[in-house]
């Protein structure tokens, strides 16, 4: 508990997490407002399409999470941390927990905020959240943001440099996974099993009949349970976390 408080103090006594939170909120809610504002009877806003900004929020969250640890390396405070808490695993687990919880909370706020603003703007649209799919696509955001934060913190711990860690995480999640689909034959098959696609599958797999993905997060065509996607993404995050702890315990601070 003490260590969680320590990491909370560290996180909130610098400016970057605040900026990231504001940015995540503005981007996601802003896009939802845009989607709702431009919708019409032929092209109505739905629960899923209010989540259009989800991917942008994800980027901001991962940048924040990676920075939470790379700035410690950048400014040498990681050494002060390990001096105060020689058990590096404990120190980093505390940091990961705090960052992940914050990411989860931001995820829920941005997701429900996006949905809320659409409802405000287009009161006439059917925006009731009642199917399991609709719940996942909105409330699931927090879970994915939290796990993505774990991934970004782990990569940040391994790479140590802000620019390197951020480019790796973003290029992989935003670009590389999709580019793999281009490979003839095997590409799409591999793509199905890639972690961020699995996260996507959790949010938008098994859509309701007639659901559209055009304005929201792309709908997943994988057929097995979306919860497998979450589990898969979670295990991926956990594996990276374990590797990063192993690395950090082995090398010099």
């Amino acid at each position, binding site marked *: 508990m*003490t*260590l969680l*408080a*320590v990491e909370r*103090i*560290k996180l909130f*006594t*610098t*400016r*970057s997490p605040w900026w990231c939170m504001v940015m995540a909120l503005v981007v996601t809610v802003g896009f939802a407002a845009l989607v709702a504002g431009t919708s019409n009877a032929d092209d109505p806003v739905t629960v899923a399409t209010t989540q259009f900004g989800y991917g942008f929020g994800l980027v901001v969250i991962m940048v924040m999470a990676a920075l939470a640890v790379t*700035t*410690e390396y950048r*400014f*040498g*405070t990681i*050494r*002060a*941390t*390990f*001096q*105060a*808490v*020689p*058990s590096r695993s404990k120190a980093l687990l505390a940091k990961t927990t705090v960052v992940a919880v914050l990411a989860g909370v931001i995820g829920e706020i941005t997701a429900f905020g996006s949905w809320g603003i659409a409802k405000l703007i287009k009161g006439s649209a059917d925006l009731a959240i009642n199917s399991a799919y609709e719940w996942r696509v909105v409330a699931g955001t927090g879970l994915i943001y939290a796990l993505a934060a774990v991934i970004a913190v782990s990569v940040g711990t391994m790479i140590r440099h802000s620019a390197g860690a951020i480019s790796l995480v973003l290029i992989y999640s935003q670009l590389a996974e999709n580019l793999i689909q281009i490979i003839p034959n095997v590409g799409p098959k591999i793509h199905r099993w890639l972690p961020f696609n699995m996260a996507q599958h959790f949010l938008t797999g098994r859509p309701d009949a007639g659901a559209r993905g055009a304005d929201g997060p792309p709908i997943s065509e994988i057929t097995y349970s979306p919860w497998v996607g979450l589990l898969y993404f979670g295990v991926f995050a956990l594996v990276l976390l374990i590797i990063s702890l192993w690395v950090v315990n*082995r*090398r*010099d*601070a």
Partner: protein
Amino acid sequence: MIEAAGLTKRYGRTVAVDNLSFTVQPGRVTGFLGPNGAGKSTTMRMILGLDRPTGGEAKINGKRYHDLHHPLRTVGALLDAKWVHPNRSARAHLRWMAKSNKLPAARVDEVLELVGLTSVANKRAGAFSLGMSQRLGIAAALLGDPEVLLFDEPVNGLDPEGILWIRKFMQRLATEGRTVLVSSHLLSEMSLTASELIVIGRGKLIAQSSTEEFVSRATENTVKVRSPQLPALRQALTGEGIEVRDDADALVVSGVDSATVGELAAKHGVVLHELSPQRGSLEEAFMQLTGDSVEYHTDITDDHAVAAAAAAELMSQGK
């Protein structure tokens, strides 16, 4: 008390610290002396468990750093004053450190007061001058009221007032019965601050002795003599059991003053062309002692001669 036993650290092919053993006793300031790259910082990082030793171990009060419960309460360290997030306030920086070792929040204000940073406690640390950063680092080290303190080149880049403040501070901490290890690459600075010296060069231990002993050993004179009859002179001197070394076309005589050498030469009818008491440069001698200066390698390798040069320098500075 700090004990290092066979401490070794290799970075690839570089041996930064080589089988280093020493003890640091409480109640006095111990100087950790070595030229740039000698391995002082590396040793300190190993003592603090930040770098993993390739061999050997360091213990604090008989325990490895890792096994200390709430280590900031036992060991305070200032390795680099810049290890602070520039956008975090001094108070916030100390607040998370205090929290991590379950120290009362009031302690933060106490140490800020102690180092005189109360008025800038809420300013971002990135805007601090070097002197202020150094004070913040000292505040952080003192947070847990530790009995063991490590400072890595704490006076580097400070103005004379700052240097004096830190020097007094270290000595006060030692008087309170704490173990204080302070590194420096300046022998002149250390001779004013430390009462005990651990000298290293290229990662190896060169000497551990009290500063006083170091200086008294150093005050032994060396005398340079030139003569067309060097072999006869050498024989005369060694015949009396006096230590003599060759230095190009001259002899360097240690342990006796120039009068003794002159009288002895007269007694044996040796003509002298030069008879001069030697004083070398403190830092230069120190560099040669620690084996870092290849370029100027002369015969001055035994520590008597070096210590002599060191003391001569000290005295010439009127300290």
